[in-house]
C-alpha cells in the first residue's frame, strides 16, 4: 500500500475520536495552568501527594487487576521504554553535549517524557483499560529508569530507596498478582468484594483529571520568554523520540516479536496493535515536569533551559501529537 493510500485509510471517524480524546485533556491542562498561576498558597505539594499516594495507586490496581497478565507484553513494553530512553540519552549527548558542559542542562526533560500525568489519562481515553494497563507498564519502567539513569545523570548515583518508597509499585504488583491468580472469593463475600472494587475503581478514575491538572500546574510559572532556549531539547523529545519509536516498532515486526498477521485471533491482533500505539504515543509525550521539581519539592536545581524544554515540548506536542496519532492510526491500525 502506498503512503497516500495509508493516509487516506484514516477516516474522519478516527480523527473525530482523537479530537474527542485530546480536546478535554488540553482543556484540563489549561485549567491546571490557570490554577498554578492563581494559587498563591502553593498547594501543588498537597495535590501531588494526594495523587501519588492515593489516587494513582488506586488507578493502577484498578486497571492491572482487570488486564490479563502477560510477561511477553511486559517485556515488549519494558524493552521499548529502555531502548527509547537510552537512544534519546545518546542523541541528546550527541546533539547538545556542549550545553551540558556549560551546565545549562542535565537533559532530564529531554530524556524523560510525561509518562504518568499526560500519558495515563490519554491512554485511557483513547484505548480504554487495555491501553491504560499498557501505559502503566510503560510508566513503571520509566519510574525505574528515572531513579537509575536519571539519578545517575544528576546526582551520580542510583536512588533505589526513593524508588522503593513509591506506593504505585506495590499496587501494581498486587494488581498483577490478582490478574495472574484467580483468587477464590466465597459467595458470601462476593458482593462486598465487588463493592470494594467499585470504590477503588472510582477513586482511581479521580486520578485522571488530577494527573492532568498537576501537569498543567507548574507550566504557568515558567517564563514564556525563555521558550526558545528549550526548542532543541523539545525537538529531540517530541520529534526524535516518536521517530525512534516507529523504527523500534518496525524492528519488533521484522523480528517477529510483534506479529502483524491478523489470523483467526482478531483480539490478539488488536492487542498487539494497541501495544505498538502505546509505545509510539508514549514516546511522543512532552517532557516530564517531575524532572524539574519546580515547586513541589522546593528544590529548584534545574536550569532555565530545562524549564524552557518542558514548556516548549508541551506547546509543540499539541501539534506533534496530532501528527503522531495520524501516522499511528494509518500505520498501526490499518494494514
Amino acid at each position: 500500500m502506498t503512503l497516500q493510500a495509508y493516509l487516506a485509510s484514516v477516516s474522519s471517524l478516527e480523527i473525530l475520536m482523537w479530537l474527542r480524546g485530546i480536546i478535554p485533556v488540553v482543556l484540563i491542562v489549561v485549567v491546571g495552568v490557570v490554577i498554578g498561576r492563581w494559587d498563591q498558597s502553593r498547594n501543588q505539594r498537597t495535590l501531588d501527594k494526594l495523587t501519588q499516594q492515593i489516587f494513582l495507586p488506586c488507578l493502577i490496581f484498578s486497571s492491572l487487576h482487570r488486564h490479563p497478565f502477560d510477561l511477553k507484553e511486559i517485556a515488549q513494553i519494558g524493552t521499548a521504554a529502555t531502548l527509547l530512553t537510552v537512544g534519546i540519552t545518546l542523541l541528546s549527548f550527541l546533539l547538545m553535549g556542549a550545553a551540558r558542559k556549560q551546565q545549562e542542562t542535565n537533559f532530564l526533560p529531554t530524556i524523560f517524557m510525561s509518562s504518568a500525568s499526560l500519558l495515563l489519562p490519554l491512554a485511557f481515553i483513547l484505548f480504554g483499560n487495555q491501553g491504560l494497563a499498557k501505559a502503566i507498564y510503560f510508566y513503571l519502567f520509566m519510574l525505574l529508569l528515572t531513579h537509575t539513569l536519571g539519578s545517575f545523570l544528576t546526582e551520580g548515583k542510583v536512588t533505589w530507596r526513593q524508588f522503593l518508597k513509591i506506593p504505585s509499585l506495590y499496587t501494581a504488583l498486587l494488581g498483577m498478582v490478582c490478574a495472574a491468580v484467580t483468587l477464590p472469593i466465597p459467595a458470601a463475600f462476593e458482593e462486598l468484594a465487588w463493592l470494594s472494587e467499585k470504590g477503588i475503581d472510582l477513586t482511581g478514575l479521580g486520578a485522571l483529571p488530577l494527573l492532568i491538572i498537576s501537569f498543567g500546574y507548574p507550566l504557568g510559572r515558567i517564563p514564556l520568554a525563555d521558550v526558545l532556549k528549550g526548542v532543541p531539547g523539545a525537538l529531540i523529545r517530541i520529534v526524535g523520540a516518536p521517530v525512534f519509536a516507529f523504527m523500534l516498532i518496525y524492528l519488533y515486526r521484522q523480528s517477529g516479536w510483534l506479529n502483524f498477521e491478523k489470523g483467526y485471533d482478531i483480539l490478539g491482533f488488536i492487542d498487539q496493535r494497541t501495544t505498538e500505539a502505546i509505545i509510539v504515543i508514549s514516546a511522543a509525550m512532552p517532557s516530564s515536569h517531575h524532572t524539574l521539581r519546580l515547586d513541589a519539592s522546593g528544590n529548584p536545581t534545574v536550569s532555565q533551559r530545562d524549564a524552557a524544554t518542558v514548556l516548549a515540548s508541551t506547546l509543540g506536542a499539541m501539534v506533534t501529537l496530532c501528527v503522531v496519532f495520524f501516522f499511528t492510526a494509518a500505520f498501526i491500525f490499518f494494514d
Partner: protein
Amino acid sequence: MIRTGARSRFVQICSIVPLRILLCTLLCPLFCTFFDYSQAQAATKEKRNVAMILFRGETPSEQGFRETLAAAAEYDVQFTTFDAAQSKERLQEIIAGLDTLQYDMIYAFGTMAAQVALAKIKDTPIIFNVVQRPIEANVAATWEHSGNNATGASNMVSMESAFKTLALVLNIRKLAFVYNENDPAPRYQRADVEKIRKKFGFKVIDVTVQNTADIPEALKLIVNSKVDAVMFPSDSFIKANANDIMETLNKHRIPTIAIIPEMVRENEALMSLGPDYYELGQLAAFNALQVFGGKHPSDVPIQTVPSLKISINLKTADMLGVNVPLQLLSLSTIIR
C-alpha cells in the same frame, strides 16, 4: 478545432453508402454472436424454485442468501417468500400449506422454523439459517452430517470471544440476561454464558419474558438490580420488542449488548457481538449450491462464521458515558 475537423472528415467518410454496408456486414454477425451467447447462457441456466420461510421478516441474511444464489452462473433461482410474522401458529400454517412439489428447496430462518419444517417436510432439501445450536435443537445429528434432509448455517458465536471484546469497553460484575423462555435458542446461549461466568468474574441475573405484558416487570427488575450491563441473546421476540426495551434501559443509563447486529442500528443498543447476518446468508447459499449440484444435504457440513462482527452505536455510547476505545474502531461497524 482540430478535433471537430477530424470528426467531420470521419462522418464524411462514413456517409459513403458502400462503406456503411461494409460496416453493417462486419458488425451484424458480431452482435448476433453476442446475443446468441447471452441467450444460450440463460437457456443453459437450470431453473430452481426456493420457498423462503421467514420468522421475523427480512434480515440481511436473506439478502446474502439471495444475492449469492443470484450470482451463481449455473442456476436461475426463483424465490417465493412466506413470513410468519413471529407467530408460531402462522409458521405451522405456512409449512402445512406448502406444496413441496413446487419447490426444489426450502429455506428456513431460525431454530423454530427449521424444527417445524423438518417435522413436516421429509423429501425436499431444507437449508436452515441462523440456527444457534443445530445439534441440541435436533435439527442435525452432527456438524458434519445432519443425518436428514437439512443443512445450513449456524449463528453460534464464541461467548469467550464476545466477553473478551466486551472487557475492552465495560467492566461487568453483574449482568442481566434477558430472554424469551418459549424460544429454545437463547437457552443455549445462557448455558454458554454460565460456562465462562467464573472466568470473567461476573454474576448473571436471569430475566425471562414470555409475552409483551411481561416486559415492564422485567425492565423494573433490571433497573432495581443495579446491573452493570444487559445482554440480549439471539431472540426474535426480544428483537421485535427491542425499541421499547432499549428506550427504557438507555434512559436509565444501562449499557446493552446484543447478539443480533441490527439491534444496534435499529434499536440503539450500545453494541453487538455476533455473526454478520449477511455473511451467514452467503454461507447458507454456498450449502444450497452444493445441494443444487447433486449433494445430499446430509453430506454438506453446517457452516459457521469464522469471526465476530462488532457493531457499536456511538450515539448510545455518548448518552451512557461509555468510552469506546480507538483500537475497536478498525474492527467495528460504527453507527452514528
